[in-house]
């Protein structure tokens, strides 16, 4: 049984100062309305867990279900750091494919503090996420900066290239009603912003935001029976872990695995995330029309383009400079404006990537439409071996 997306909805990203449940309910109702499906017909709810909102956040699935009014649906809650939303979608999809439910609502919502994301309070000498701050002062942007510097030293990337990613994404997001930052940026603006972790400037790094996103998944039979217009097919969801040895340093770890026993593996973890999606869908990178990738930093967007095999290793700057990744180019990347225009709302973000692709594949992305897009892919990586990639097709 194929699972299709019948509806998508979001609450605009920003710093709104409200409870995450309000954002989630807003997005859920928008997705149900988009699908033309009543809440009473939902028989499975998956919530993306938020770790910054107390117990209600730990049991997000039940929190959203109760807020919408208990309807007796089965529920689940997923947590996979930044990949939470994709894991939640995968859970709903698997249940539909197994014939165990017909209509699943997937919701992720968050509120986030200002500034650097920091670990929860308390002394935890056995928690790498605590130790990296305590022993090294190693923030998230510092990890992004390691990857950025490596692009410069290995492939000749420049600060101007990184800034050009911001310029592109800022332009893409101008007409997106859900984006938080809707303002053009210039290369000079990015270079004039303070350096946070060399070589990355403040405007190279994504902010943290409040926001919520939701999708309604139904079985292909249900879509047909109820005349759902333009359902978008979920061709694959990849949530693979790394394969030993993981030889690229991953946030929040202090070390890689050793490659001494087996040598360096054929694919890095991030390469394996996309590859698993392609294999599951039975298509290749040459079939992709549009991509939403996790640009936690500008430079990381360039890494993802290569990880998804949209070009060869070390050639993402060539695509960028040629305008290939801009809307209207050969393979537009982050037509939504990406995290550059949103800021990250952790458990909602991977769902928001999918919402954007749903609108792109339906031809409804007003002001930012990738013409004729039929296949879209998302990519994302969360702490502790959580990757995700969702492949959608018309």
């Amino acid at each position, binding site marked *: 049984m194929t699972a299709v997306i019948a509806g998508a909805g979001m609450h605009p990203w920003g710093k709104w100062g409200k409870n995450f449940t309000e954002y989630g309910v807003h997005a859920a109702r928008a997705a149900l309305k988009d699908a033309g499906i009543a809440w009473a017909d939902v028989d499975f709810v998956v919530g993306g867990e938020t770790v910054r909102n107390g117990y209600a956040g730990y049991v997000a699935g039940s929190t959203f279900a109760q807020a919408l009014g208990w309807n007796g649906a089965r529920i689940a809650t997923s947590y996979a750091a930044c990949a939470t939303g994709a894991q939640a979608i995968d859970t709903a999809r698997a249940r539909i494919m197994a014939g165990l439910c017909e209509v699943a609502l997937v919701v992720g919502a968050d509120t986030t503090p200002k500034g650097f994301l920091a670990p929860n309070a308390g002394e935890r*000498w056995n928690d790498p996420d605590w130790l990296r701050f305590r022993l*090294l002062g190693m*923030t998230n942007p510092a990890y992004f900066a390691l990857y950025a510097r490596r692009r410069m*030293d290995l492939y000749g990337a420049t600060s101007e290239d990184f800034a050009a990613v911001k310029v592109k994404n800022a332009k893409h997001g101008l007409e997106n009603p859900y984006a938080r930052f809707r303002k053009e940026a210039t290369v000079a603006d990015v270079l004039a912003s303070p350096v946070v*972790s060399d070589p990355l400037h403040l405007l190279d790094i994504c902010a943290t935001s409040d926001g919520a996103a939701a999708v309604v998944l139904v079985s292909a039979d249900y879509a047909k029976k109820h005349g759902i217009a333009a359902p978008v097919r979920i061709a694959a969801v990849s949530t693979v872990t790394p394969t030993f040895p993981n030889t690229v340093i991953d946030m929040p770890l*202090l070390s890689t695995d*050793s*490659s001494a026993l087996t040598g360096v593996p054929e694919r890095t973890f991030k390469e394996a995330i996309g590859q698993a999606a392609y294999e599951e869908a039975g298509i290749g990178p040459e079939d992709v029309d549009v991509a939403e990738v996790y640009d936690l930093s500008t430079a990381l967007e360039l890494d993802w383009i290569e990880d998804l095999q949209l070009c060869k290793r070390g050639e993402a700057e060539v695509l960028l400079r040629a305008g290939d990744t801009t809307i209207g180019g050969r393979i537009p990347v982050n037509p939504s404006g990406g995290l550059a225009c949103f800021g990250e709302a952790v458990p909602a973000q991977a769902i928001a990537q999918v919402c954007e692709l749903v609108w792109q594949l339906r031809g409804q992305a007003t002001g930012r439409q990738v013409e004729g897009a039929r296949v879209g892919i998302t990519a994302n990586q969360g702490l502790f071996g959580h990757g995700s990639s969702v492949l959608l097709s018309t």
Partner: protein
Amino acid sequence: MTATPVSPVIEGWFTTGEEPRLLASRCTRCTNVVFPPVSADAGAAAFYCRNPACDGDEYDAVELSRRGTVWSYTDAQYQPPAPYVPAADPYQPFALAAVELPEGLVILGQVADGYGVADLAVGAEVELVVETLHTDETGERTIYRWKPVTA
């Protein structure tokens, strides 16, 4: 006048002295090496070999090579949030490096006092030193750091 006590900020991760080294745990069955090592101080009493082809649960403590090459590097221009403990007021930025060792691991560390990103390059050689991370009520607390090797 008594000397200020000096102690590692975390036990069992590195040796001190003239030629300090990082400590790792090596599986007695397959020889896979992991860092950070099994350390009761860090709450890890048990060892599980990370090699999926091995179910080893015993390890030897081994010293890693002192010298490695820079995989990448950056710095912290703004004070990191707690539980980072700033060493000075006002805050002094510091550099960070990920360093590839002959044992096949890449290990993150701060860069030695007095060195910044201008002193580093991908592929450059660095060696391990032990320096003061900060001072608390028990005295000076030390941490391993990477120091550029100047020929």
